């Protein structure tokens, strides 16, 4: 990882950040193993340069970015966000990146662009979980995620290229990943090679695997439990060992309701979970 130039996030300094060492050693990135410590161990030779990210589909100016574009095309800013995993643990991470909205405006979506489809790199030679079923946890590859176009255009939605002041380590989704802070972490797809503007709601990885457990929207919602555990509270991972008193109430939309709740105002959130 190399240092990045960015404007720092002065609005969220009161959030207690998860130590960098924990952010980069506790990852759900099944492409490098389904255990939390495996991605950090098995991804260190992952090649991020050269890289190509294609933005295409229902738009007027499709483009392909290469590795240098990712950090130079837009001014980078730090965003200190809460990250809530569907498994009921959470972190606070100082991401660095740019708004997805800025990127999408550049390709000029047309009126048929109703959803955005994201895809992770598929490279079983570099990503051992994609070829080894035991390592990869039995999910379908390549990993795909999706957002509704208004969600994608929301100012909070971030394309992240770094954390803690430096480019992303591979285990956190280098060289570029999505961060959608009001949704469960699995929506924030890593190591993206393709962003496609589409007409229909896409089939997403975890939703396909277990639709009753992982919805398409996956908005953080303390009132709607995962079938196998409560989502009413969460354990915030900070410093401290076993005795860290870190169980906290989970907030609707992970505390970002003011910025995002309006997008769902006519929806039954226990049906569209």
């Amino acid at each position: 990882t190399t240092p990045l130039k960015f404007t720092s996030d002065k609005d969220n300094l009161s959030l207690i950040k998860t130590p960098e060492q924990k952010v980069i050693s506790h990852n759900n990135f099944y492409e490098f193993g389904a255990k939390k410590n495996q991605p950090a161990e098995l991804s260190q030779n992952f090649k991020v340069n050269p890289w190509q990210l294609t933005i295409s589909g229902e738009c007027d100016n499709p483009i392909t970015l290469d590795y240098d574009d990712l950090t130079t095309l837009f001014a980078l800013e730090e965003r200190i966000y809460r990250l809530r995993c569907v498994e009921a643990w959470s972190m606070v991470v100082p991401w660095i990146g740019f708004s997805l909205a800025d990127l999408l405006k550049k390709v000029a979506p047309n009126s048929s662009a109703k959803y955005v489809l994201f895809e992770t790199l598929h490279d079983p030679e570099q990503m051992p979980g994609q070829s080894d079923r035991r390592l990869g946890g039995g999910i379908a590859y390549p990993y795909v995620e999706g957002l509704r176009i208004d969600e994608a255009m929301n100012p909070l939605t971030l394309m992240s290229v770094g954390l803690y002041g430096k480019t992303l380590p591979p285990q956190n989704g280098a060289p570029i990943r999505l961060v959608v802070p009001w949704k469960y972490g699995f929506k924030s797809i890593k190591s993206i090679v393709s962003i496609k503007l589409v007409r229909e709601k896409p089939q997403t990885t975890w939703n396909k695997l277990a639709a009753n457990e992982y919805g398409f929207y996956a908005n953080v919602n303390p009132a709607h439990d995962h079938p196998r555990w409560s989502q009413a509270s969460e354990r915030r991972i900070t410093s401290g060992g076993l005795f860290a008193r870190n169980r906290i109430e989970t907030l609707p939309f992970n505390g970002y309701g003011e910025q995002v709740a309006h997008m769902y105002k006519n929806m039954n959130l226990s049906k569209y979970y």
Partner: protein
Amino acid sequence: MVFTTSHKVLLLKVVIHLAAFLPLLNLYYLAFNDQLGADPVQEVIHFTGIGAFNLLLVTLTVSPIAKRFKQGYLLQVRRLLGLYTFSYAFMHLLNFLVFDLQLAWSLFFNEVVKRPYITIGMIAFVLLTALAITSLDRIKRKMGKSWQSLHNYSYFIAILVSVHFYWSVKSEIISPLFYMVLTVALLAFRYKKIKTLILSIFVKNIRSK
């Protein structure tokens, strides 16, 4: 000095104590000092859970091996293994309650009732507790024949635990399946006994009707 059977038993017991107790000491030392990965809570829960299952399977392996190789003295370490199984299961539950839920009792009771995988885990734990308590010699003697019927529940516990493990994972079902196969294999050694047990339950039901 002659190496007698009681020496063998003693030696085995020492090995079991070392192999079962030291890893726990090491686990909690690392966890309390925040040296057990980013989320020590998840780590201690998983370690003690899978540890309890391993010990249960080892306990269930003792009698088939003792029979097959005519090493009757092995049966003398079965209680110790069973008690370690219980201890690991107890720590597993305690980790969940104290470190994960942080003594949110209402959440705990809710989860036990609402989540099938936790419910069956809890049933298995209650049964294990019964087996652990009745392992005391005095109680065992008083119970007479019913002691064996109670301890036959160890087979049922093994089935519950394997389902508990299978239902607890998100998508990585290979190791739970592997454990399920091991469990079934160990129960297969007792095919006749288990068949008789199941039949006797049916017979009782028919009589009571």
